[in-house]
């Protein structure tokens, strides 16, 4: 291999007539005067001058008979291939590389600095750096067998290169991670691996899980190597909004409450004003709803004095407070006045109540989980999570901030709160770009901008980076980018990362599970194949497989029918009775459907009979 053609100080072309170049591999350019710089292969080509491309200048295809004859004479035309590669130099040079110098494969220790930024016990082992297959021979023991891979067809595969280890401690300087990629690109898989690694390091994680897929209990595959097998059930906690966690009404201010209401349906300014007027400090859900309902009754009653009369009859209010309360209602009536506004608030509130979001214990379990350095997974529908995340984040981010500020001021520390990561998929829903008012955006933006100070970090995954808030996007120092096809997304990636145009061109065609990592922590863009996950999502069953599967009930029905064979029009009624006795109430056509299914499977044969119409018989 040698450098050919015109060179400059950051790119060279290399050619070889024996060795193929591999995309992303590192090579040493033996230019003594420049200190033998290392380069990365960014484009590869092969050319056989004797098998030229067919065009109007040379419209001739090579004659295979002639080639075959030459081969018998000892000449292989295929060996005339010239391999060339464009190599990007990874260090800063001030002079161009000399043309003609030799290029060779490196030994691991010569490129270690470029490939390994942290050791496996201190960093996150996310996968294998692409193009490092050649270094496997000289790879030290500690970096071996820590990142097995997975191929869809062949299953689990041995680690085939240098592991990619992310130094997560460096996030103190370069905070936040973005994971981008379309559906099927391996984005969710990558997110899972990243979370697994953080769980292993006992980093408290708060995961918002709109897809109900974040569970770290089930082992990915029984054939995983024993030393690699691990489940994180005991280190993670799955909570569902509305049943395990919710909102403690007492902690809400009117803004929070409006945000919650807006999760059901957008809230008008009039409604916001009304909520602000009606909500009193110290309100609980009950006091607030009764005040709201009383106000509605007051506005609905045709005659105020009638209402007052009825009101004074009520027993649920202490006598001495009745007058004061009535005055308050009258005042509110003047302030709010619009019955429709109040009714709108009321139906939104009722919907939230039915969802079970208001609960006494609020976010206690989340806080406790994080304090215990666990991974807390919060599940809920996306519309609910958007609002709930805002509420939770504000609350716990404040706690962490207060703790850190107190620490800094040297004050007495009462509520210790640990640093933590916030993780979410579909992040463009939580912090969308543009004008629309999404409650969680403010919190995420704030964490993006100043979370680092307090040890709060974001991991945001999305398939639409172009829809993610610009400020948030710009703060994601480390970006892992999987296959992306949309041009708008590619545009954003181009702007927001140091990924070169060669890599951008490859993005739409990346195989699932392969991505580029652009990070100041690593110093350059690296192509990575994500390692196999240790655990798997609970619903990985393909819906089409599901269609082909038989359930227990089908089996039992078929068994009963099987006993009644042969079946024809005249004895169909018996089959029906038998089935009914066993608890399967079925009509004629349903039974026929089952019989036809059995015919398809070859268990049963169907004959047409002139007298009986049809006969289903057991196949001999």
């Amino acid at each position, binding site marked *: 291999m040698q450098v050919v053609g015109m060179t400059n100080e950051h790119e060279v072309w290399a050619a070889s007539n024996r060795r193929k170049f591999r995309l992303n591999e590192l090579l040493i350019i033996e230019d003594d005067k420049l200190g033998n710089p290392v380069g990365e292969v960014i484009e590869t080509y092969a050319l056989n001058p*004797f098998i030229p491309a067919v065009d109007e200048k040379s419209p*001739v295809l090579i004659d295979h008979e*002639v080639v*075959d*004859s030459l*081969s*018998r*004479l*000892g*000449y292989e035309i295929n060996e005339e291939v010239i391999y060339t590669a464009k190599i990007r130099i990874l260090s800063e040079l001030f002079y161009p590389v000399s043309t003609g110098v030799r290029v060779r494969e490196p030994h691991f220790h010569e490129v270690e600095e470029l490939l390994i930024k942290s050791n496996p016990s201190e960093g996150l082992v996310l996968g294998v750096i692409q193009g490092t297959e050649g270094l496997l021979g000289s790879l030290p023991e500690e970096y071996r067998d820590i990142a097995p891979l997975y191929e869809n067809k062949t299953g689990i595969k041995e680690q085939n290169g240098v592991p990619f280890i992310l130094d997560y401690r460096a996030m103190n300087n370069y905070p936040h991670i973005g994971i981008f990629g379309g559906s099927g690109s391996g984005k969710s898989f990558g997110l899972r691996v990243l979370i697994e690694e953080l769980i292993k390091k006992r980093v408290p994680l708060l995961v918002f899980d709109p897809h109900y897929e974040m569970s770290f209990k089930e082992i990915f595959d029984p054939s995983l190597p024993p030393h690699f097998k691990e489940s994180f059930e005991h280190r993670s906690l799955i909570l569902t909004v509305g049943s395990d966690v919710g909102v403690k009404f007492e902690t809400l201010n009117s803004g929070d409450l409006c945000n919650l209401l807006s999760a059901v349906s957008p809230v008008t300014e009039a409604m916001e004003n009304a909520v602000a007027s009606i909500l009193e400090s110290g309100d609980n859900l009950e006091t607030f709803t009764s005040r709201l309902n009383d106000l509605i009754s007051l506005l609905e009653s045709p005659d105020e004095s009638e209402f007052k009369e009825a009101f004074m009859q009520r027993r649920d209010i202490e006598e001495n407070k009745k007058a004061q309360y009535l005055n308050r209602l009258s005042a509110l009536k003047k302030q709010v006045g619009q019955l429709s506004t109040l009714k709108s608030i009321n139906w939104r509130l009722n919907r939230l109540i039915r969802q079970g979001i208001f609960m006494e214990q609020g976010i206690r379990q989340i806080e406790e989980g994080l304090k215990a350095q666990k991974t807390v997974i919060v599940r809920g529908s996306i519309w609910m999570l958007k609002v709930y995340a805002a509420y939770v984040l504000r609350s716990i981010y404040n706690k962490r901030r207060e703790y850190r500020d107190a620490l800094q001021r040297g004050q007495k520390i009462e509520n210790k709160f640990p640093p933590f990561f916030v993780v979410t998929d579909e992040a463009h829903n939580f912090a969308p770009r543009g004008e629309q008012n999404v409650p969680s955006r403010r919190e995420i933006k704030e964490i993006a901008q100043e979370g680092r100070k307090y040890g709060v970090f974001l991991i945001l995954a999305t398939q639409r980076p172009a829809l993610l808030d610009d400020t948030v996007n710009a703060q994601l120092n480390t970006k892992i980018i999987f296959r992306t096809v949309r041009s708008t997304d590619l545009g954003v990636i181009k702007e927001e990362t140091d990924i070169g145009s060669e890599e951008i061109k490859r993005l739409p065609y990346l195989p699932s599970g392969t991505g580029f990592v652009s990070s100041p922590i690593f110093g350059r863009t690296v192509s990575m194949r994500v390692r196999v996950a240790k655990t798997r999502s609970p619903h990985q069953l393909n819906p089409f497989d599901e269609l082909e599967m038989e359930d227990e009930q089908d089996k039992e029905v078929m068994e009963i029918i099987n006993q009644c064979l042969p079946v024809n029009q005249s004895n169909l009624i018996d089959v029906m009775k038998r089935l009914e006795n066993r608890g399967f109430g079925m009509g004629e056509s349903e039974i026929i459907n089952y019989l036809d299914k059995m015919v398809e499977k070859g268990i049963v044969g169907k004959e047409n009979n002139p007298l009986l119409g049809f006969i289903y018989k057991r196949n001999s």
Partner: protein
Amino acid sequence: MLEAHLIKSLQDFNERIKRNYQDLPQADTLRDKISLFGRFIYCNKIDASRIPEFTECRPVVAVDGSRIEYASFFPYSLVFMRTLAKCTGGSDITRSGIISPLNLEVYNQLEKISDEQDISLEEAYTLHLKYSLAYMELLTALEAAKTYKPYMLMLDGGFLLFDRFEEWEELRRVCIENKIILTGIIEEIATAELANWLDLNRDNRIRIYDREVLFGILEVGEYLIFNSDRRIKKDYCTVFARLGTSPQAIGCDFLSEQEDDVFKSMDFIYTLTPKSGQGIPLWLQITDARVRIKREEAEKLVENYLDPYVKEKIFKANRKKRAF
């Protein structure tokens, strides 16, 4: 106005050329007439699996040369030459060198040629270059013949180019002794013998050459071999053949001592020739591509190894400095 005049001239020229060839006999008639001196024979492709048996497991060698001139004008000229013998299944044998009239020895030689042949120095230089390259090719061929003792040794060009040198005799001897079939493949036929035999040349028209006679009268895979008493040049056995789709024939020279081997040799050459194209064996094409010196290559060499002073003073033509 100028263009109109040019177009008219071109049209006249076209008419005149057409007229010149107008009364040439038709292809069939020509073939009949040619049959008096020789035979038309079809080649057979040899099946690839039979090749090792056919050649007794010996390789094939093709020899070719290339030259490129780096010059402003005579005598400010520097010529790079390179020859290559490429052997199937063996390593390459190459020779190379430079020639320039600025070299006193060369200059003296040119003066000698010029005096002997009564031509200008510049014409003498052209001839000298041609023969120097041929000589270098001959030496390369000789070395390859001795080294590999191939089944066939292909030269690029007819034997007349090489047989003026002493070493030709040696090459001939080595080939005959070792049963190496020696052939010279001629891409551009330049003889006029056949036309003369056919009595096609008349006083009042421009000369007819063999290539015009042979154009389009051969089928693909067909060749024309002459009776032993008819020689196109000297005592060589010359064959005209059409081995590819191009209607233009090529020539193959063989030694008269190897005349009996011509039939199987033609089958072999045909087997090594791609169907489409100008009908030259692929091995010779590959050798030609490998030996070719590229202009950029020559310029790089000059830039790297000649002092800028020398380069500017001697080889930079003033006209290259024109602004437009």
